[in-house]
């Protein structure tokens, strides 16, 4: 069974601060995806990383896939209240279309 551990589970910061969320596993993943989920809604895909060491940027969000493809991080620069939400990492170990294993999620609150 593949497990993804996300940390921290909860994060409350002030507007303008930087933060990093971590996603770790002992398993190797063929891809790692980051989602954002609002209450009562489905997860919305932010990014997919597939190559070890890959770094992707989405405005103030930077996603990194570990060299060994077992871990990933999400870094947010100058957080804004609009960044508040649940961030989920999810990995798949097989070929395209295989199941996703989700982490527990990080609930981020950015206070104005």
């Amino acid at each position, binding site marked *: 069974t593949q497990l993804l551990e996300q940390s921290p589970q909860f994060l409350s910061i002030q507007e303008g601060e930087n933060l990093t969320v971590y996603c770790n596993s002992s398993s190797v993943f063929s891809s790692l995806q980051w989602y954002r989920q609002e209450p*009562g*809604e489905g*997860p919305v*895909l932010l990014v*997919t990383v597939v190559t070890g060491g890959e770094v992707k940027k989405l405005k103030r969000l930077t996603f990194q896939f570990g060299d060994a493809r077992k871990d990933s991080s999400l870094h947010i620069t100058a957080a804004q209240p609009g960044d508040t939400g649940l961030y989920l990492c999810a990995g798949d170990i097989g070929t395209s*279309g295989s199941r996703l294993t989700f982490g527990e*999620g990080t609930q981020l609150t950015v206070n104005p």
Partner: protein
Amino acid sequence: EPEVTQTPSHQVTQMGQEVILRCVPISNHLYFYWYRQILGQKVEFLVSFYNNEISEKSEIFDDQFSVERPDGSNFTLKIRSTKLEDSAMYFCASTRGFGYTFGSGTRLTVV
């Protein structure tokens, strides 16, 4: 932006009743999934469907569960005899390969 559409958004049912949750995946996607999320817990995989058959299922997906793609657009999850512990958000998702699109979910409450 193409969407995955799920109906109903809420369903309340009595224990032991059958429910059918419906999904319309994105039309050119090839893989279809059902996931569920019990309140306060992580999103869990139930089943994947490819080329008109189940490609993988989890230990949660027992004989009470079934999936169908009755036509070219709909994808359904049936729970034959619901239990209290089936209460959860059920998400349909689809993909062409990497990166899923999830629906907004059906909140199922079994009373």
